[in-house]
């Protein structure tokens, strides 16, 4: 197998139009902030604007006295101001500048603002720990009083990887290098700020929240928690979601919960919409990592040992550092089969914005370090990095960092293809000898990524398919559209499994009352694993429909087949019945026309906690990124000219969607590698709170994209599909950093390659 194009399917593997495309290009698609309900109140929160403080006194009387203000709530007013997840809906102990001390609901946005302005708060400032160094110290002031560690470590986020014996490996090496790399916060930068509208049914008490939720079931936990209601009384209705990338998990939970609480106390529908500034202040970011790395390499290019000590700025709350760190740890030796690997990763609370889920989930940080370290090691022994990559990369029968024996590995093929297509070796050598002001550079990254959640949590899911009497079909899943095209891919997968036309299928937003929780739409699992249940439901329902048709047509089941929505006799394909015919009869004859199915992954996955070794993912996606840049050596400006993105997708479900994911992920990665950085003032308060200061790429900044889709023989994943959402971003910043080095001869070991980093080797603020 190799480039996309040789697999044979009826519906998948083709660029069918998006199922939600027409609604979106016309502006008819409804997002949560568009919803208006009669008697609806507006709401807002008061943020401390201090990085670490305690509320000494809070006076809400003036706010409450404003006519048209219906609720002013502080932490003291709430039965449960702390969220189930460790976050705070409202708090008197401010742990970062985005923390909220009060919330209000009022008749208009103006009155909300007036009420917030009228709340008087007296604070006692506490020492601000805005770096891991400050917080991770014996006796440092505690950010969480209940944390039993004296140094603000968050123990559940600490993991180990132990493969072989690194001391032996370093002893074997001809050269041992030690380097330190670090990365910054990154904001997801979805264009739609979090929004929720909560409405409670006065008769039965059911709380419905319309929300821009990445994971409606996850959001449901927050809402049930804040109003202390059983989950079956809480309904989250996911609206079109204006981008998420991992970001609309916790923050939308807080928004939806606060709206629901205000709805409950005011007995009025309540809308809460974040401003851009608020989401910058309170929505999680990509965790900053500091990676102290050591590598041993022999003169022939064999890597003998790798050691990583990784420190993670977890921010003010427990925020998935444990999951991100676990994944980073498991991927810490990248796409290389290194006999001896030792990684320790430690998450530490600080007074910064919290880290959380973000496309890549630890991998971009690890690759930023590792893929530069590989090149530094290659240079130390005088070898072209490409050769070191080829010599050490994973292959069939070899093990990766977690000790898993791999199969169907096409990485070397992708490396060779990409290198040849870009003329990498020649350029990489030639660019080292430039002397001009503007210098070109080329940089490579090779990578692998576990598909889905692996053994972190079972990759199980449920799906339901219903056929109507007119032959039209409705599908439903516990996983959710995030903008990536999940509805379209699922409709294709259902159509493929059922043997019906794609156009006969609709998929509306996820409603938590309509289907069981299927875990989160995360970890690039939607297509590769989450859709397994859709395929299964489709295949099973197909059998049921064939039985129905056989009975109605008066033949044995084996005699009937179904293709493209038409039933026909195998013996005489000219005898046909349409889906509408069969279902139109089935509805009145008691035949089953819908089916719900649950997919449970094989139980052979495991990971040993002490060593991180095991069979951790069912399969891995491989990829190569080659970045070509032009660096202005007088200003430090890095112009990314071309990104060659070559990815192993197993089976491409929808090539146009895949290309969209890859270009979008690559550009987000380019922002991470060049301009995107969260900055704080001297008091630890975030300064980069809107798109004027937090700089993401515009259309004028885009490089030329060369996207190469590879497929391979694998029986894992839905119809053989692998992950693409995260691999698209993972290696971009690292490839840019390698390209910048190629151009300038200077290593940028602190992401991003900003003008200051490239010119001066440091940030200035």
């Amino acid at each position, binding site marked *: 197998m190799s480039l996309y194009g040789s697999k044979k399917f009826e519906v998948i593997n083709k660029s069918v139009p998006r199922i939600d495309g027409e609604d979106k290009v016309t502006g008819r698609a409804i997002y949560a902030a568009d919803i208006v309900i009669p008697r609806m109140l507006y709401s807002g929160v008061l943020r401390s604007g201090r990085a670490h403080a305690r509320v000494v006194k809070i006076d809400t009387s003036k706010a409450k006295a404003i006519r048209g203000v219906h609720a002013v709530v502080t932490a003291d007013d709430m039965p449960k101001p702390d969220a189930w997840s460790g976050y705070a809906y409202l708090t008197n102990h401010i742990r970062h500048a985005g923390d909220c001390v009060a919330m209000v609901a009022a008749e208009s*946005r*103006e009155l909300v*603002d*007036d009420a917030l302005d009228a709340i008087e708060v007296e604070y006692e400032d506490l020492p601000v720990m805005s770096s891991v160094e400050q917080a991770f110290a014996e006796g440092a002031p505690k950010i969480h009083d209940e944390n039993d560690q004296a140094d603000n470590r968050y123990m559940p986020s600490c993991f180990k990887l132990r493969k072989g014996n690194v001391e032996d490996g370093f002893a074997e090496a001809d050269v041992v290098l030690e380097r330190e790399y670090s990365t910054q916060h990154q904001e997801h930068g979805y264009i739609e700020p979090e929004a929720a509208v909560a409405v409670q049914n006065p008769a039965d008490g059911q709380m419905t929240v319309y929300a821009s939720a990445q994971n409606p079931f996850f959001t449901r936990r927050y809402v049930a928690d804040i109003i202390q209601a059983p989950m079956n009384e809480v309904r989250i209705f996911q609206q079109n979601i204006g981008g998420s990338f991992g970001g609309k998990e916790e923050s939308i939970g807080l928004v939806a919960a606060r709206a629901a609480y205000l709805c409950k106390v005011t007995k009025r529908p309540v809308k809460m919409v974040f401003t851009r500034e608020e989401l910058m202040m309170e929505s999680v970011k990509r965790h900053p990592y500091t990676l102290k790395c050591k590598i041993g390499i022999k003169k022939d290019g064999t890597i003998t040992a790798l050691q990583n000590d990784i420190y993670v700025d977890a921010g003010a709350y427990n925020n998935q550092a444990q999951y991100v760190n676990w994944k980073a740890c498991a991927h810490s030796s990248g796409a290389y089969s290194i006999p001896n690997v030792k990684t320790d990763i430690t998450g530490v609370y600080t007074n910064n914005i919290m880290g959380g889920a973000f496309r890549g989930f630890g991998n971009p940080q690890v690759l930023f370090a590792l893929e530069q370290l590989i090149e530094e090691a290659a240079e130390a022994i005088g070898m072209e990095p490409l050769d070191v990559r080829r010599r050490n990369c994973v292959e069939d029968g070899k093990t990766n960092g977690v000790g898993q024996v791999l199969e169907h590995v096409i990485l070397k093929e992708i490396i060779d293809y990409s290198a040849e297509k870009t003329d990498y070796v020649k350029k990489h050598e030639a660019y080292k000898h430039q002397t001009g*002001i503007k210098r070109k550079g080329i940089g490579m990254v090779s990578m692998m990524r576990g598909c889905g959640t692996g053994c972190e949590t079972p990759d199980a899911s449920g799906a339901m398919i219903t056929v109507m009497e007119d032959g039209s079909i409705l599908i439903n899943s516990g996983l959710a559209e995030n903008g990536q095209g999940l509805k379209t891919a699922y409709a294709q997968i259902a159509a493929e499994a059922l043997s019906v036309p794609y156009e006969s299928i609709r998929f509306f937003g996820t409603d938590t009352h309509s289907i069981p929780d299927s875990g989160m739409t995360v970890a690039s699992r939607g297509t590769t694993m989450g859709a397994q249940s859709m395929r299964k439901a489709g295949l099973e329902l197909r059998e049921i429909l064939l039985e129905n048709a056989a009975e109605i047509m008066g033949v044995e089941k084996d005699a009937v087949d179904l293709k493209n929505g038409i039933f026909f006799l195998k013996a005489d394909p000219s005898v046909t019945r349409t889906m509408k015919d069969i279902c139109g009869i089935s509805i009145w004859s008691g035949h089953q026309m819908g089916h719900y199915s649950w997919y449970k992954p094989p139980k052979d996955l495991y990971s040993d906690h002490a060593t991180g070794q095991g069979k951790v993912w069912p399969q891995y996606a491989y990829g190569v990124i080659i970045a070509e840049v032009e660096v202005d050596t*007088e*200003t*430090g*400006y890095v112009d990314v000219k071309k990104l060659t993105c070559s990815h192993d997708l197993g089976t491409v479900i929808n090539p146009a969607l895949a290309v969209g994911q890859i270009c979008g992920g690559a550009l987000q990665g380019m922002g991470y590698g060049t*301009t995107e950085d969260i900055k704080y003032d001297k008091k630890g308060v975030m300064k980069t709170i809107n*798109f*004027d200061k937090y*700089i993401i*790429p*515009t*259309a*004028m*900044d885009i490089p030329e994209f060369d996207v190469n889709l590879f497929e391979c023989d694998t029986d894992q994943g839905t119809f053989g599909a692998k992950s693409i959402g995260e691999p698209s971003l993972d290696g971009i910043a690292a490839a840019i950093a390698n390209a910048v080095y190629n151009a300038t001869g200077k290593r940028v070991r602190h992401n991003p390659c*900003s*003008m*200051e980093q490239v*010119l*001066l080797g440091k940030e*200035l*603020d």
Partner: protein
Amino acid sequence: MLRYDYVRPASVEEACAFLLKTPGRSCPIAGCTDFLVQVREKSARWKDLQYVVDLSALPELSGIRVEDGIVHVGAMTTHSAAEHSPVLAEHAPLLAAACASVGSPQIRNRGTIGGAVANASPASDPMPVLIALEANALVQGPNGQRTIPMSDMIVKPGKTALAPDEIILGFSFPSVAHMRTVFLKLGRRKALSISRMNVSLVVHQDAEGVIDHVALAPGCVFAAPDRARKAEALLLGRRPDAALIDDAAKAVADEMIERTGVRWSTEYKQPVITALVRRALENGTEVAE
């Protein structure tokens, strides 16, 4: 949330009269691309704001024309209008270039040159260009009109030389059609970018190649946009060569440090403004072999 009333005067006189009547409580508005951002951020500047006075529909404030070698640009000229103006393309291409580099098409379609100047943003793109063009602002107050040289317009960041009841009618400057001009901008991205630094240059060399006119205005370098007089003095009367250009470029950086002191950003700005000025001079002059 700041709330205010809206006033749409029928003439400049009416606008000035209203401003006079409501000192410190009114803000003249044009495209609002800066104003509404400041309102959102609850800028202290507008804490007493009661009225906005909409100048955008006043015909006497629009238009770009050239008369007797003098270019007149109405205050309500949008950045887009300037960007696409055939008059500016001929008589002041660097002003068109600077306007084309502002924000995005949406911002350029609304934001006006008069508004940008009245806002006194330290990172303004047209501002240093107007200084390099030796432009004057024509200003009207309750007691009539006066002229303010653009080099005197910005008193400090966010503060202009305008009295609260004065309105900018437009800008005028001699055509530089016969001179070489350069506008260079360094930003962190290629659009929607605030200048990290910029350079405006208007220069003329006589038949022998001797510089007989030079105006060099670096942006985001001094506390307020201004000409780099020391570099200009080096250049004037000389035939440029690589060494002279280097010296002039360094002189701009030296003057920056002299005037603003060494700040957190100096380590970056010093070498980079030197490079940018050198590039501007290389582009803008005929260098002797």
